[in-house]
């Protein structure tokens, strides 16, 4: 009798626990989940509502029978006052539970970011499903358009593309890997500024990736591709019509001829690439407190990356000191970590930065008259002058124009204070606006170059 009672209790306990845990198991079953790979958040004009766009993984593309052709992502949009509310509505709309654990990108439109996004970023950071390594993108167009155009025929799996695109920062410095966790920390920190990846549509993005099946948007207001503050949208009609006639074999992005003397200082809002992709990620978006205040061009982003020690090597093109019509390509690398010293004895902080770089000229110079060491000296001088000018321009832009310490110099300044209250009394957040910068480079940056002499030509 005792044994029967014991087994009865055991079986009843198992049944109770099976019942209790089945709801969690059922809701988290892989068959009952829809995986979101990117989120886009826009503000509806003249309304308190948000337009939250969900980009889903097309699971059909992972099946054995899937063709090698790229499958279009599934994009749905919900209008709701908050992100949690949009998630709830989307759960009801699609009939499956959303799962954000594979979300790779969170895109906010520039217009929305200008109004402050701390509440939204805070919710997303504390969401158990979203990983702190998810990339944050601020788009100069509607976030929904950015997501629609973020496809590449060079990468069949979109999730993989989202995973690897920020790694180009390590060898170009034209963008930076900004994970959600770091972005949130910087948004909360009143002394520093935050940055995020800047996403843009390319010149003729309207003609790219137009796929009615993927446009399940429920909001016509935000689904129309439009670039805010952008005037040159689809201006090249000849190019567009030509592209329509071409097949999809044109997959490699071509750099468009730019008429400006120094194309590295281009404004990232004016896209300079064209190809099969309608969107690009170059430059950075700058925040003061939790509001978007402006953007950084690619060369400014390179300055940011170098100061953060995030770029391994990069290529610069400067005007030749021997002939203004010529350009010299220089591959620059980091020899050792930069040294930053901050003088806080004066009213405004004085930030002294010393770089230790190494470089080689990668194109063959046609120079017959100047000796090798003189050529090297002149090139070093030209490079240093160029870099000093760019760095100073970048640093003063972050302080004077944006008043946003995006390179977190305040953390170095904190070394000179004993307690947090001493540092608070110094009032770094306001004093950074008046900060002075001194940038220095090591004596010989360029160590290698090849000179073609007259006799070398056959």
């Amino acid at each position: 009798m005792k044994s029967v009672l014991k087994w009865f209790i055991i079986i009843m306990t198992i049944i109770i626990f099976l019942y209790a845990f089945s709801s969690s198991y059922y809701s988290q079953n892989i068959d009952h989940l829809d995986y979101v790979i990117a989120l886009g958040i826009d503000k509806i004009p003249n309304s308190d509502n948000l337009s939250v766009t969900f980009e889903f993984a097309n699971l059909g593309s992972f099946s054995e029978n899937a063709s090698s052709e790229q499958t279009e992502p599934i994009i749905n949009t919900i209008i709701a006052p908050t992100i949690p509310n949009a998630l709830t509505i989307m759960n009801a709309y699609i009939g499956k539970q959303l799962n954000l654990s594979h979300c790779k990108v969170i895109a906010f439109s520039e217009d929305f970011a200008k109004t402050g996004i701390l509440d939204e970023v805070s919710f997303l950071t504390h969401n158990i499903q979203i990983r702190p390594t998810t990339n944050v993108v601020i788009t100069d167009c509607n976030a929904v358009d950015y997501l629609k155009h973020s496809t590449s025929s060079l990468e069949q799996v979109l999730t993989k593309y989202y995973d690897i695109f920020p790694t180009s920062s390590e060898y170009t410095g034209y963008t930076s890997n900004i994970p959600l966790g770091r972005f949130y920390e910087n948004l909360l920190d009143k002394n520093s500024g935050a940055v995020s990846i800047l996403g843009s549509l390319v010149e003729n993005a309207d003609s790219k990736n137009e796929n009615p099946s993927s446009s399940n948007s429920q909001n016509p207001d935000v689904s129309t591709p439009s670039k805010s503050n952008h005037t040159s949208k689809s201006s090249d009609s000849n190019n567009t019509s030509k592209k329509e006639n071409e097949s999809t074999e044109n997959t490699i992005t071509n750099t468009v001829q730019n008429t400006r003397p120094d194309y590295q200082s281009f404004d990232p809002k004016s896209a300079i690439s064209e190809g099969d992709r309608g969107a690009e990620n170059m430059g950075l978006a700058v925040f003061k407190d939790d509001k978007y205040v402006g953007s950084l061009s690619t060369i400014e982003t390179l300055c940011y990356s170098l100061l953060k020690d995030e770029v391994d090597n990069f290529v610069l093109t400067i005007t030749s000191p021997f002939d203004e019509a010529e350009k010299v390509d220089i591959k620059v690398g980091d020899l050792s970590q930069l040294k930053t010293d901050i003088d806080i004895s004066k009213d405004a902080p004085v930030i002294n930065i010393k770089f230790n770089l190494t470089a080689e000229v990668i194109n063959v110079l046609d120079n017959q008259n100047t000796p090798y060491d003189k050529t090297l000296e002149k090139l070093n001088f030209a490079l240093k002058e160029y870099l000093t000018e760019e760095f100073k321009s970048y640093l003063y832009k972050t302080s004077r124009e944006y008043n946003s310490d995006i390179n977190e110099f305040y953390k170095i300044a904190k070394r000179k204070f004993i307690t947090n209250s001493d540092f608070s009394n110094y009032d770094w957040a306001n004093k950074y606006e008046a900060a002075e910068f001194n940038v220095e480079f090591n004596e010989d940056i360029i160590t290698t170059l090849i000179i073609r002499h007259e006799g070398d030509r056959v």
Partner: protein
Amino acid sequence: MERKLGNFEVINSLIMMSIADIVLTSAGILIKEVNSASLLTSCLISILGIFITFIMCKLSKNFIGKDILNISEYLGGKILKTIVGFGFVIYFILILALFLRQTSDAMQLIYYPLTHIIFIIALLSIATGIIANFGNNSIFKATSLIVPFLYTAIFLIFIGNTKNFNIDNMFPIFGNGFNHSFIKGLTNIFTFSGLSYLFFFPSKLKKPEEITKIGLIFSILNCVYLIFCVADILFLFSDTMNHSQLPPLYISVRYIEFGTFFQRMDAAFIFLCVLGLISALNINLYFILEILKNITNLSDSKPLIFPCLLTAFGIALGLKQDSTLDFLENSLSKILFIVFTFVVPLIIFIGAFLKKKFKYNP
């Protein structure tokens, strides 16, 4: 007759209790309280912890093979033994309830969002009860198996996060001020929570004369774990993530990506932590039962397993509000730790030592 425990098993058990506390609460609390000075405070706490452990072990050497209950009986008879015993039972049941609640909350948040917390607490309680039925052999052997993995995990977490570190988070070096960091900060010595159990081990040891060695090894390992844990959180995000419902160490694991192949280290970490926390629950329950057995002269403590667990289950279930949980974690458990780990044992050891020294020998 229960099997006697080896030094390795005892050190691992003590470490397990400290790891459970550091991972769940104390590392986060330390960083929240002393901010950028937390690494310096951790070092100071470590030195103090090693020193106090050494002193206490030296004092207990006068009573080789006797646990704190035996010594209190020697000092004040059965009455003192019963009072001290019940005090420790209440303290350990509170710790058991806190561990149950914190582990269940984390499991619900991560894996079982639609399951009521009552079932998760019940599941952990039943699992603890079943293991306790198997006796000390299974508990201490399982702990010895898990702790090396958990210990290695903190080094891997630290190494994995190195690329995301910002060393400057440790400045200003004195954080919120000298008093706040070093006087008030010293109350965070409760990161040595394993120490509370050390003086119940001598009667169960194969070599009770090596209690000082065990104590010192435990203290040093505890310090290393604490410093790595605090450094990982401090260098990664300081106190930004302290408002999260999840332990900060778990959040730090979510930052780790070894290329694109190994990206979800948190799942492995949670698996290890759940195994470790069940071990910690069992060690705690084992000592509750041993104390009750000792003070009530019961021959078998097994009938007390489920009443004890039911009490802890009730308390864990009652900790519904975050404010109550915060009060227990931040204030009450700190005070109880200092009382039951330092004040009570020190008074008993010194009293018993003096009694032994000045005892009239005809």
